[in-house]
């Protein structure tokens, strides 16, 4: 680095020796970065609201919390016009293929927020019919804890998504986080097991309240044996 000889008045402006000089008022960036910058301030959410969390999501859209301040106020009910899936509420087994289909219908680049205890882990609904976390079946970028989460938490996760869009977004797609991709590869390698091919007994917690269910211990899926 050398001190810029033509701008002798300011000792602070320096130019890297091996890069061409910029005229004043011009700066260099990457296309990816500019696209991401535009994109992150105009996310279009797809509200997949299946339960009570959806009500909180409506509050975020209304004037008091005002998601429009973050440029994400255009909730679309057609997945083809959206780039941010918000799974708000529990997802039943029968709903899972619908969720996956809607996710596939959204054009790239796209992101996903798993909102609330139910969408992230199944919450208190630990029964045969409820999916225990949508991240087992679709990629998720941000999780929001809470039952239901406060609207501020939803706004915070939106800001996290914005950060992520700026950091990892590319012009044509969304690369995801490396650690999530590693987990996806792990799941991918063993997903062709037949339905119901549980390989481990339940944690033995069904009788933790002093009674034993007549059905005996449940079986877990491949995914929960880790």
């Amino acid at each position, binding site marked *: 680095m050398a001190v810029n000889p033509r701008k002798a008045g300011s000792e602070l402006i320096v130019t890297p020796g091996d890069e061409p000089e910029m005229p004043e008022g011009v700066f260099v960036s990457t296309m990816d970065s500019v696209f991401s910058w535009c994109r992150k301030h105009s996310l279009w959410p797809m509200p997949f609201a299946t339960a009570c969390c959806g009500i909180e999501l409506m509050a975020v859209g209304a004037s008091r919390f005002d998601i429009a301040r973050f440029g994400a106020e255009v909730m679309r009910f057609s997945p083809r016009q959206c780039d941010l899936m918000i799974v708000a509420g529990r997802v039943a087994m029968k709903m899972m293929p619908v969720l996956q289909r809607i996710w596939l219908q959204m054009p790239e680049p796209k992101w996903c927020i798993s909102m609330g205890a139910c969408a992230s882990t199944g919450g208190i609904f630990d029964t*045969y019919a409820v999916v*225990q976390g949508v991240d087992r079946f679709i990629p998720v970028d941000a999780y929001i804890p809470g039952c239901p989460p406060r609207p501020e938490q939803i706004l915070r996760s939106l800001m996290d998504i914005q950060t992520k869009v700026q950091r990892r977004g590319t012009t044509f797609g969304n690369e995801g986080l490396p650690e999530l991709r590693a987990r996806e590869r792990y799941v991918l390698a063993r997903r062709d097991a037949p339905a119901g091919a549980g390989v481990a007994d*339940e944690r033995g917690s069904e009788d933790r309240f002093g009674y034993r*269910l007549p059905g005996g211990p449940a079986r877990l899926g491949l995914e929960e044996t880790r």
Partner: protein
Amino acid sequence: MSQAAVNVPSGAPADPRIDPAPGAADEAILAKLAAAVGEDAHRVVRFRDNLRILVAPGRLIEVLTALKEKAGCAFLAELGGTDYLQYPDPDRQGTGARFEVHYVLRDLETAGMVVVKAGVDDPDPVLPSAYSLWPGADWMEREVYDMFGIRFEGHPDLRRILMPEEFASFPLRKDYPLRGRGERHNFTKLTREES
């Protein structure tokens, strides 16, 4: 017709506010039913203000038809199933079978009500369908089939109604674990690359 006593703990007098006797309208239904099919097709059990008619599966349709056409119970208010596996009360006044399907019938003119119960047992529980009497039994029988695996012969479209088609168990059976047998975990996983 063997009539069991009203189900009251021995020694305690029946409190009519808690244990009202079946009303006259219900008793009238019983009398008309007995006149139509005789006394040996069914057994009557009284519990509080309920009149329960226990029937063998073979005579279920006969009794239901008589109730609908002769005894005035034209309205099928409810149809459901129960699994009595490991039921703690040995004196339960039921059919003694593992599964029971109950039909709640009402007479809309006199407000009378009776509960018809039919018991079926493992390994292949089958009952005749009530669809020909009440088309409204369609979805209710499908639900009983979905949850307990009781087949209804003569049902026009006996498919699962709540659980996914590819689900292989009957979840409300008592020997099915609450958290399932791993069915909920093994859907296809979509990865970032594929979507």
